[in-house]
């Protein structure tokens, strides 16, 4: 069966002047021993938001795009939803080319934006009815589906309210209703839970699980590890427009180096400390960080005294210690050298 979504060496380069989609990296981008990425800043100062991205999403799959701000997640969604023209490469949604067959692609997709963007000139139900009209639904069909969706998402009592009167979570549910109204084959959600309170976030997860159970293909971007872990069948970890890892959450987790990640914040610059720490039995890898060292331990927190001792021996004072259990987060840090959020 052909893939529902396919991208082939997708590249998107923004000229130097327009940096709006790319935020600068936090911290030092390339840890010693970590995966080294080609810098996105080319000689001319242009920025590659996508740098040769190959993806394949199967029908019915819940697919997650995970990465920090500026990783290229939104640009990827933009290309797949016909709103961003790739500089090179190809992308297909439901077998249709996103550039040459835009209208056909738009008919097959539903998009839930990062920030709710309801039509504020219209009330809640009109938002859905006009959306239905844009997709050729008759008034009766649109009305029936709209009410059913509003019921399902528990905002039917707000059907005739102005959209500005809805809470953030309600607006988000209206956006999902709108994206589903024309029964698209693929649903794109761009950071759907950003800005929602924990309760609304859990409610949204439930909705997404139901949609998934209905057999819809879902592509979601997120920078919340837990969200990706809970919901997605497969995850693509991307950073700086490149695919770093792609697998099921559990298998990705198994790839995380060491079992535990220990961050040591050190006073001053101590290359000697790294050498001593690497020699400790049970330490798999040590990366030098601007603020200190990052050690990957396969004996959990047990190695902390030894690490402190090694650092002190090298003449470095340990200011702080942070321990992270193995998770997608630690894998992400190992792959990119930076934290997600």
């Amino acid at each position, binding site marked *: 069966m052909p893939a529902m979504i396919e991208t082939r060496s997708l590249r998107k380069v923004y000229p130097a002047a327009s940096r709006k989609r790319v935020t600068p990296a936090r911290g030092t981008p390339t840890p010693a021993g970590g995966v080294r990425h080609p810098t996105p800043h080319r000689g001319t100062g242009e920025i590659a938001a996508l740098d040769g991205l190959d993806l394949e999403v199967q029908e019915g799959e819940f697919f997650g795009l995970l990465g920090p701000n500026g990783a290229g997640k939104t640009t990827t969604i*933009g290309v797949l939803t016909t*709103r961003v*023209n790739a500089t090179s490469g190809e992308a297909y949604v439901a077998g249709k080319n996103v550039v040459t067959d835009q209208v*056909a692609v738009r008919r097959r997709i539903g*998009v839930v934006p990062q920030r709710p963007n309801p039509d504020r*000139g219209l009330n809640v139900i009109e938002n859905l009815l006009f959306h239905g009209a844009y997709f050729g639904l008759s008034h009766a069909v649109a009305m029936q589906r709209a009410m059913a969706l509003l019921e399902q998402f528990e905002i039917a009592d707000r059907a005739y309210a102005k959209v500005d009167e809805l809470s953030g979570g309600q607006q988000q549910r209206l956006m999902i209703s709108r994206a589903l109204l024309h029964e698209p084959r693929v649903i794109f959600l761009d950071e759907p839970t950003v800005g929602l309170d924990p309760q609304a976030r859990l409610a949204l997860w439930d909705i997404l699980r139901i949609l998934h159970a209905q*057999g819809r293909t879902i592509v979601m971007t997120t920078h919340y590890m837990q969200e990706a872990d809970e919901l997605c069948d497969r995850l693509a970890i991307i950073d700086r427009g490149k695919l770093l890892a792609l697998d099921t959450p559990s298998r990705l987790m198994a790839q995380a180096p060491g079992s535990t990640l220990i961050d040591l914040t050190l006073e001053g610059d101590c290359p000697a400390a790294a050498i001593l720490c690497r020699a400790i039995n049970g330490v798999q890898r040590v990366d030098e960080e601007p603020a200190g060292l990052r050690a990957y331990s396969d004996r959990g927190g047990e190695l902390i005294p030894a690490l402190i001792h090694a650092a002190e021996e090298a003449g470095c004072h340990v200011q702080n210690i942070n321990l992270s259990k193995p998770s997608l987060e630690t894998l992400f840090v190992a792959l990119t050298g930076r934290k997600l959020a």
Partner: protein
Amino acid sequence: MKPDALDDAPLPVSDVFFAMLRRDIRVARRELPFFLLRTTMQPLLLMVVFGYLLPKMGMVAKGYTATLLPGVVSLSLALSAVQSVSLPMVAQFGFSKEIEDRLLAPIPSHLVALELVTAGTLQGLFAGLFVLPVGRLIMGAIPGLGFSNSLQILSVMLLGAATFSALGLLIGCAINPQQIGLMFSSIIGPMIFFGCMYYPWKGLDSVPVMKYAVLVNPLVYVAEGMRATLTPAVPHMDLTVIAIALVALLLFFWYLGLRAFMRRAVT
């Protein structure tokens, strides 16, 4: 899940286009009181001051209303058309992103721009037609206003509204929300004062530089066109020249406006 075939069922772009037009009419109808206030306040005040008060005081000649009335009608029409496209565009592209639902509708993006300009043209036309009888009430009989040349009047209005609507698309897509005040002081202001609204173009004979410089201003042609049709006794440009100029400006603004729109619609 629906069968694949449904996704390929014919969906004429005209259906989508008219659904969007219905949306704009629905929104405009809901905002009608504000719309009328916004588009007619200035022309109404102008008519009261220049058409009624000043002639009464003897500050301007009685016949001045004949010069001013076409100008006033063209001003409401132009302002209404340009604002009804540019103001929502600035907001919807700039921060509310409301336009995205329409940009993701199954219709080529340039037709979304065409729909916006069409809706703006209708609003401009509506504003012009609304001001006309108001002017009649304040300023007295309008010599050219009759059934016989209604087609000419409507044609000038339609062309003028379309031109300004296309200009609205260009302005709305090209400027940032922060610059909206600047738009009024730097574009709309001079356009009004040098738009042959208060005086016929012929009156600029004594200032030749100005006479030819104002020809880039689309309001000149709308005002002159209204003069030619509503008050033919006042000196005015030839209607053919007016039509050609308006069509040329319309195409020019549409070309630039569409380019700016597409740059925002697909990045």
